[in-house]
């Protein structure tokens, strides 16, 4: 009923290979974009935009970055937090040196620094795999964290050791700093996220993405066919770190406003890995679903007792939160080990033939 595909014929290879082959999905995408770009900034409250939507988009972006590496190329990484940090500190230094340059360009540029660092730490992946690679990326995490504390040049010798975002304008609007309105920051973040998701989606569906997946599925076979692991793995590290770096720069510039090293610690690497696993390895939609699950659900759970007028202590709610989220993670992984994206795919398959199942 919902997916009535009668009359939708594919008459060219182009149509057959489309990312959204069903008309309803294409309409839905435009509808989501309409909601995201028009409805939410117009009607969302400051709290909703600032504490839910902006971080959700930023973490979704970071999840996409990790998904490129872990989901599509099969290289597990625990260094995402640090690569985000590289992007953030790079953007901070860039805007210190080039205060007049449009901050959005600097955010996009700062990803290249993260990509460079990511490639250096990706080199061991040519020799080692699996758990051993996890350990080397963990080393990257600790080494970079150490740099963020011990290299005062990175934070302009601030006594507090934190990077504080100066006020910057773009297109005549204040986009960073405390005076920037949440809606403006949200729209900037949303635009960057949509743009980069589109780029990554094209990469994944193209030649490069296919070599990544070949490496993931069987690296020896891929090598025999003619895929060069050096290029495939390093390009995956570069793209992944680039996206993570941009996410990190956005995290500081469009959300937090100031950050210490603790914003890029190993807990964030785990957080993003969880988002990827819960959302679904090797799925862009999954990155968004995972980020929504891990970031938004706790906030909603926290708000429930107050909305219903229950008088529960803030700390008790927090403990309950940990328990509920933990239980839900286990439940979802038992129901569907391939994550929320797979659940969604199954649901859609059922919807397409509903109400006449086989």
């Amino acid at each position, binding site marked *: 009923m919902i997916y009535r595909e009668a009359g939708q014929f594919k008459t060219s290879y182009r149509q057959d290979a489309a990312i959204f082959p069903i008309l309803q999905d294409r309409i839905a995408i435009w509808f*989501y974009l309409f909601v995201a770009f028009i409805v939410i900034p117009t009607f969302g409250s400051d709290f909703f935009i600032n504490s839910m939507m902006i*971080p959700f988009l930023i973490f979704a972006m970071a999840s996409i970055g990790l998904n490129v590496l872990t989901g599509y190329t099969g290289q597990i990484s625990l260094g995402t937090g640090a690569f985000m940090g590289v992007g953030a500190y790079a953007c901070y230094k860039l805007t210190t040196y080039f205060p007049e340059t449009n901050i959005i360009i600097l955010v996009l540029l700062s990803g290249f620094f993260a990509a460079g660092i990511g490639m250096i730490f990706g080199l061991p992946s040519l020799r080692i795999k699996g758990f051993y690679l996890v350990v080397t990326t963990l080393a990257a995490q600790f080494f970079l964290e150490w740099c963020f504390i011990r290299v005062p040049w990175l934070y302009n010798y601030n006594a507090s050791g934190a990077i504080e975002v100066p006020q910057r304008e773009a297109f005549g609007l204040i986009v960073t*700093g*405390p005076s920037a309105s949440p809606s403006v920051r949200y729209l900037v973040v949303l635009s960057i996220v949509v743009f980069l998701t589109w780029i990554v989606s094209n990469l994944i569906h193209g030649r490069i993405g296919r070599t990544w997946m070949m490496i993931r599925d069987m690296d020896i076979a891929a090598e025999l066919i003619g895929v060069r692991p050096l290029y495939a793995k390093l390009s995956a590290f570069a793209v992944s770190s680039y996206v993570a770096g941009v996410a990190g720069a956005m995290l500081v510039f469009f959300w937090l406003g100031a950050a210490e090293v603790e914003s890029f610690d190993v807990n964030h690497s785990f957080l993003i890995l969880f988002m990827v696993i819960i959302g679904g390895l090797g799925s862009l939609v999954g990155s968004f679903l995972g980020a929504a699950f891990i970031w938004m659900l706790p906030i909603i759970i926290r708000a429930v007792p107050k909305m219903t007028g229950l008088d529960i202590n803030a700390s008790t709610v927090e403990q309950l939160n940990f328990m509920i989220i933990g239980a839900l993670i286990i439940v979802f992984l038992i129901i569907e080990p391939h994550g929320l994206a797979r659940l969604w795919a199954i649901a859609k398959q059922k919807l397409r033939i509903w109400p006449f199942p086989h």
Partner: protein
Amino acid sequence: MFKKIATGAVIAATALTMQTASVSAQETLFVPSLSYRTGPFAGNGIPIANGFADYFTMINERDGGIGGLKVVVEECETGYNAQKGVECYEATKGKGALVYNPYSTGITLQLIPKTPVDKIPVLSMGYGLSAAAIGEKFPWVFNYPATYWDQMSSIIKYIDGQEGGIKGKKVGFIYLDVGYGKEPIPLLDQLAEEMGFEVVKFPVGVKEMQNQSSHWLNVRKEKPDWMIMWGFGAMNATAIKEAAKIRYPLDHFIGNWWAGAHADLEPVGEAGKGYISANMAKAGTDMPAVQDILKYVVDAGKSQVSDRSEVGKVLYNRGMLNAVVVAEAIRIAQEMTGKTAITGEDMRIGLENMDLSDERLKELGLEGFTVPIKATCENHGSGGPIFMHQWNGSDFERISDLIPPMTDRVRAMLEEAADKYIADKPGWQTQDCG
């Protein structure tokens, strides 16, 4: 799925907005409390949050609130995490919040730039950005009774007064390697140069808090004459245990006022005998107002304390002092503006005209509770004196008179730091103190 999330989110947002409206419709004095009863620093966060909440409960029960309006304290759990702290701020600021007490230097640094925009002051009582004491440059931030720099200078002064002065001595500085611990370093370096002593620094990362053997091995190698500690949470007890293990003389080991509470020393017990730390508010229950808390709140079962003996401990009383200052600021703001339901802007006026003198403390039933706090337009840090107390194996004993800070040195450095802070922030709101 995406659609469901979107609708769900929109519903949640609407509900949140509606709830905001219903709260601000009632006439109350809304004071959010950013607490941390969970996480690595919960041991310190719980007594602070209890003391803060209990004092206001007592005021509501005994006096019916302030100026006839009840004080509503809403706790929001931060877990000492800056991101969650900002989330708490965003979630509560729309409900007519009067003032924020973040109890974390990390959260304070995040909130400072937001204060002039949202017109809600931040009271970081004895922590946070030291430079915020310069009232002209930071109209919305208050950090009395003393900044970290004041406190450090008082500690140096105390050391200078012992055993023939500090000149030529070696001072070790062990600190938690985050914004909080690094805050006093510029002053310490400057004083070392001016007063002719040597500083050795021992940074302790958050992850190494409970494993400091290597740091104390270095201490043993360096043999400093005095040790100063800027520690928090589990770091304190570990450091004191390690110091005792290498037989460092504990009466030459001085913590700041976040490194000298019952929560820190009770796990160490007898082994920590002799350890000294700074403090700003008296511990104990021998004050009428504290007795009222026991009577109206704790015995009535309206407190979250697990045991009656929790009342009167160092951090409980510090949370209470914070509440006393906020209550006093509300009262002053009500007096000066002539309205009872005040806003964040009025609250700022109240905080700026704070005058918690000895007489006023006596009126409040808190004689000798704290050092006098007096703020002015120029001075939001008060620059008050501190005192030292020493652990005797089971409790703290006060061992010094009030030690005033080296205001002449500190003030100049604070001004320089404040100028540096606002230098790269065009359009930063300052005020003219005439």
